[in-house]
């Protein structure tokens, strides 16, 4: 791999705003500024996190010019069913694109990135969106729980306007049992920590990076920064040191802030590194999982990435007040109502409504301009029949027309905030609001729209869009 024409064209991340202070896990006292981890909200999963990162990465890039979506995760909400296909529809990408799930390993994002680079090299001009997201479920109060966190990152791989080239990649493979989930495991399982670190993590990371150094004729000093996966903060420091990196040449691993976000771990750090990098920088980037993969990432141009940086996401936080609230959000505490009960949305209804519900597509009357959501056959404005063009609502701002707080509807975090919103193109949508508190609500509050899980009825995720207060800065939402 020496052709530098293929690489990262755009990038962005998403860290869910919800934080679990680690002290809550064992009933300790929460100290302001103490260690915490990012956790997906009750209405988020790997798919919604990935979509949020994808939105941030794509910005105003023409979505019709995306040729593929590769989705890397170990925690797809589906055992069988493609998460990439869902994400592609939610991102309003075309329906003739290549979609692939890279799953089953922590290292899946490395495979997805290299596959995307290879696809672009095979056919220059191609653009592939690579999403990496994980919402891994550790057993409550297990040793793993404090280290794991949830996050997502996205990279648009292409050959035009490349910001950073992936010039080389070296993989090594290992079948060590360090972390895994078997057929019947709900929770992530792990072997003894010291074994995992010594023979799983350190051996493989050192091997992959050393081989990359040998092949490229490089040493640590040739790199501006090391972007390394690690299972915990201590192992991260040890690995960086063994490779010859220290101080600000080590991209901060965000333990105590985000946590180990699995397949999205190295991708998230790479987004952080790229946001700070300057043209000419070189990033040693190492992924881990069933072996390791080291990449040489050469920064060609200064860039700022998505409109919301990693720093923005780290600043925007909403701390949970109880461990019980976390357990509720994961359906881990018994309740009167089975939140996964019922049949859920009939497949046929989902099939007919998926452009409204997943793509968040409205329609504009070509006769009179009235915008309708959801789609209908006869215009409210001029009564014309079937004279509509599709319009995307998901990337437009809106405002709250009126609202209510529903304390009756079952929800892990009652009340459900619900409002009629007007999108800036005139469409009206009746949607729930997320990442908000009741005291923020007022008529005309500016909002944006985010893809979220609405419920788990039928034992599967059912998705729709929600509104979220559009705050100018990373305002803390309490």
């Amino acid at each position: 791999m020496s052709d530098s024409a293929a690489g990262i064209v755009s990038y962005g991340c998403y860290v869910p705003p919800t934080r679990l202070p680690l002290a809550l896990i064992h009933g300790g006292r929460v100290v302001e500024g103490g260690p915490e981890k990012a956790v997906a909200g009750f209405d988020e999963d790997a798919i919604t996190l990935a979509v949020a990162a994808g939105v941030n990465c794509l910005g105003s890039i023409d979505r019709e010019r995306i040729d593929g979506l590769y989705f890397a995760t170990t925690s797809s909400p589906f055992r069988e069913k493609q998460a990439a296909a869902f994400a592609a529809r939610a991102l309003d990408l075309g329906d003739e694109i290549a979609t692939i799930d890279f799953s089953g390993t922590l290292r899946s994002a490395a495979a997805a990135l290299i596959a995307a680079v290879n696809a672009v090299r095979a056919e220059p001009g191609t653009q592939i969106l690579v999403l990496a997201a994980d919402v891994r479920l550790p057993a409550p109060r297990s040793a793993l729980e404090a280290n794991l966190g949830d996050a997502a990152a996205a990279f648009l791989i292409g050959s035009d306007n490349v910001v950073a080239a992936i010039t080389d990649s070296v993989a090594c493979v290992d079948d060590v049992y360090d972390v895994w989930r078997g057929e019947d495991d709900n929770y992530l399982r792990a072997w003894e920590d010291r074994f995992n670190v010594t023979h799983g993590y350190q051996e493989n990371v050192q091997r992959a990076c050393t081989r990359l150094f040998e092949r490229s004729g490089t040493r640590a000093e040739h790199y501006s920064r090391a972007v390394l996966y690690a299972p915990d903060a201590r192992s991260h420091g040890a690995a960086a040191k063994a490779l010859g990196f220290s101080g600000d040449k080590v991209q901060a691993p965000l333990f105590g802030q985000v946590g180990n976000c699995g397949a999205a771990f190295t991708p998230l750090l790479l987004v952080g590194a790229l946001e700070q990098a300057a043209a000419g920088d070189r990033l040693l980037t190492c992924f881990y999982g069933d072996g390791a993969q080291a990449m040489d990432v050469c920064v060609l141009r200064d860039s700022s990435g998505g409109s919301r940086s990693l720093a923005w996401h780290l600043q925007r936080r909403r701390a949970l007040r109880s461990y019980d609230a976390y357990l509720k959000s994961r359906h881990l505490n018994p309740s009167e109502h089975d939140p996964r009960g019922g049949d859920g949305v009939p497949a046929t209804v989902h099939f007919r409504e998926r452009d409204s519900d997943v793509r968040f597509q409205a329609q504009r009357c070509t006769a009179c301009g009235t915008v309708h959501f959801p789609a209908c056959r006869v215009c409210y404005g001029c009564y014309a029949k079937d004279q509509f063009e599709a319009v995307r609502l998901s990337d437009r701002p809106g405002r709250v027309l009126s609202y209510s707080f529903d304390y009756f509807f079952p929800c892990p975090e009652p009340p459900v905030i619900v409002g009629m919103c007007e999108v800036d193109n005139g469409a009206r949508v009746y949607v729930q609001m997320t990442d908000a508190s009741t005291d923020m609500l007022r008529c005309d509050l500016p909002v944006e729209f985010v893809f979220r899980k609405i419920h788990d009825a039928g034992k599967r995720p059912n998705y729709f869009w929600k509104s979220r207060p559009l705050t100018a800065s990373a305002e803390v939402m309490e």
Partner: protein
Amino acid sequence: MTGSIRGKAAVVGVGCCKFGENWQQGPEDMIVDAAFEAYADAGIDEPQKQIDAVFCGSVYPSRGPAEVAESLKLFDRPVSLVQNYCATGTDAFRYAVAAVAAGMHDTVLVVGFDKPKDRGVSGPSVHLNTARGLPMTPAGWFSLCCARYFETFGAGREELAKIAVKNHHNGTLAPKSMLKKEISVEEALNGRMISWPFTLYDCAAQSDGAAAAIITRRDLARNFRADPVSVLGVSIALSANPQTDPSFDFLSWKPTVAAAKDIYAQAGITDPRAQIDLAQVHDCFTMTELLTYEDLGFIEKGAAKEHIDSGTFALDGELPVNTDGGLKTFGHPTGATGVRMIYENVLQLQGRAEGRQVKGATVALSHNLGGAPQTCGLAILGID
């Protein structure tokens, strides 16, 4: 064009079962209680011969119109079931009046009923079979206007509480109401929150009930009783769902405005506040009643706060509303409610409303609003 019903039909008998959590009564018991009271009220002793057709209103029937036919053993004649959200009772009444006015039948029976308390839940059922439109609760739908209205016109939760207090008081005077308990504004404000700004006290209860009315040709009415009540107008209007309507303003319910325009033309009403003596309006939630004062033209848009404060709509006020305590104290067995309002208005017009009697009342209006909400049913009755 739409015609007028005025002068063509009259109500000659009404009946109503006791509304409540009627654990010991099935739909049949309630239907029989209401219908036989109406028969007696109309002096009908041979319903098999005297009732030509039956119009039923029910939103949750288990067997459709047969539920009424089999309960009353009224067979071998037209028996139909009408459904129109919470305006079902009023719409069944409208079909009955129209059928008589058209000359299809001389004398017909209207029966509204519902039995929601066999479902095992105290509030509405929650079904997660859609991704869009959730939470799908009536309180959530009807509360959607509050924030915008409050910000625009300065009313608030206190005005809503005063409506609940008024209706709770009136309900203590109605023998067939479910709740007979005076409440205070403070109690109402501190109730359990259901859907902001509605506490428990802003919401109509779930109850079981049935009500009946006998309609006949105006020219035959005095064969039944000396003081028949004339139907001055009936109307129903279905408007766009506020959740999809591109021009909804969250200050007014469109179906009420549309139906009022139609029925006032039928009944010759040009100044509703002066010409209407009392009204039963759909207080499924207190805010519904508040907006209805304005949507029916009783007062100017935005003026509800001052009129609630001054008692315009109290039992001893200028235009008493929900003289029997409304849905607040009767509960809301959906199909029964509109017919229950007819029952109360007939008693009022005939001077039979006892402790809650509005003196000298000659024109009374009833109002249902249902759906998200999308549909409004209105009836105006009068007595000479």
